[in-house]
């Protein structure tokens, strides 16, 4: 029961706070690609892999009082920040989960911008292709982002650094 919710709570307890829904979407996708057992289903959208299931599950966790969502108005948009609550920690402690430790990966992901994580998750989305094909595909699906060769190199380097769960 609610195991998928508990896995997300484990993520939030290790991340402590996450700023930005886009960043959250990409973090969970990248962790999934690193074999962490998150079950949310992703599809490719305008800004890369996106999971409606994740959006709704996070909304549920907020409505249950397990997470708080702070809405901050930026220049042309809103940004959301998520923090785990005491009730959330109590909920999490009731689960005996066999979830691998993801502290190191979360720290690496948190340190990066959402633009960079969008690039990394897009590269991972096309991971069945060769490096040259992936680069071509990234430029095709994200022409407006104008990702530079340096950013692409950094993305591939980041992917090789972030260790998948065995």
């Amino acid at each position, binding site marked *: 029961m609610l195991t998928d919710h508990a896995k997300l709570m484990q993520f939030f307890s290790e991340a402590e706070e996450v700023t930005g829904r886009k960043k959250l979407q990409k973090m969970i996708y990248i962790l999934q690609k690193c074999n962490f057992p998150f079950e949310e289903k992703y599809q490719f959208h305008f800004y890369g892999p996106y999971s409606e299931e994740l959006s709704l599950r996070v909304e*549920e966790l907020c409505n249950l009082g397990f997470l708080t969502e702070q809405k901050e108005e930026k220049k042309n948009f809103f940004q959301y920040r998520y923090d785990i609550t005491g009730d959330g920690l109590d909920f999490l402690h009731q689960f005996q989960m066999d979830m691998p430790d993801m502290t190191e990966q979360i720290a690496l992901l948190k340190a990066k911008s959402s633009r960079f994580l969008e690039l990394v998750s897009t590269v991972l989305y096309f991971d069945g292709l060769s490096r040259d094909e992936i680069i071509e595909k990234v430029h095709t699906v994200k022409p407006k982002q104008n990702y530079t060769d340096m950013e692409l190199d950094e993305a591939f380097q980041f992917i090789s650094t972030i260790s998948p769960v065995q």
Partner: protein
Amino acid sequence: MPYKDEQLHEEKVFKDPVHRYVHVNDRVIWDLIATPEFQRLRRIKQLGTTYLTFHGAEHSRFNHSLGVYEIVRRIIANFEDSPRWDPNVRLLCLCAALLHDLGHGPFSHSFEKVFKLDHEHFTQQIILGDTQIHRILEQVAPGFSQKVADVIDKTYEDKLVVSLISSQIDADRMDYLQRDAYFTGVSYGHFDMERILRVMRPLEDQVVIKSSGMHAVEDYIMSRYQMYWQVYFHPVTRSAEVILSKILHRAKYLYEQDYIFKLKPTHFISFFNESVSLRDYLKLDEAVVSYYFQLWQEEDDAILRDLCERFVNRRLFKYIEFNPNQQMNVWKELYQLFQTAGINPDYYLEVDSSSDLPYDFYRPGEEEERLPIHLLKPDGDLVELSRNSDIVESISGKKRTDHKLYFPADLLRQLPADHPAKERIAEILHL
């Protein structure tokens, strides 16, 4: 004349209860509809188990796919005069619209969850693999099948083409809302599609709505909201989905325990082994699944037998509201009480959450979270819908989640009156 330009000698029409007529002139579209892979969609219901709640909801993915094709055909007819529209992508759009749901399997949602499948993956395989669909698309032009697959995967270079098939106001949603409303018989789900089609404008990378058409879009957003609560997330349908999932889990478990089924479940074996080939996938439609459920009512395993009998004869689980924040201890207690009562809680007790059946709400969202609906102002500026519409802003902020606890009330009532667990179970579940 090249195959891609070939027209039928005379226009073919399908009578359709939602769009009145679906018009086909292109030979390619006509040939695609005639393939076994597309005809299979007749045997996959659009709304899965919803027919157990709304008896009219027996319509299929075939109906819906034709409907999406027809809407895209009409949108393109409106766009043809726009300088921003490239007439060379017409056939690509029509093929992608027609084939977008090709990979849906029987009772997709539960099957995908239990057997870890992804219908989008099979859509890609059918379009790119050794199928009649693939051969027809390649006859249009070498590499055309890949373009169709990319549009459906939303990774095609021309975002305008993608947004016709998949965006927050696309042909897919406009068809299923109206079609599902029609077949379920509910009075929600209706909106002025003709008006929306008239105010749609193609931009470089997305379809936008002329701001004068905002009220028609508000109606569309409202109908999405109402259809979610009244139809898609109906608690009785969710009960049927819970039982369906439990049947699949039980059958898989029994197979893994070397249980001898009375009839070898040949069609399911690759699903149980989680190594489903395209050929296996295409063979399993809802008619086949129903056949096995009929047979499994005669099985020796009491749990499989009972669950199938419930599903086939609509003897569903009852439910109560459940708050995981306040009732976790209740869950643990119930789990133990069920065990004491000899009722396996792994198959007869379930919490179902709204995120178990995710529905695509309209979310204005955060910058670059996902593309919202944009209104095109007279001065050429774009503004996100909820910034101009109080109605949409109000709906966007509403609480849209809930959790329900499902259980077999009939089985629990049959427990002997003096059973030590009965009174407490009845107290918790309000029996």
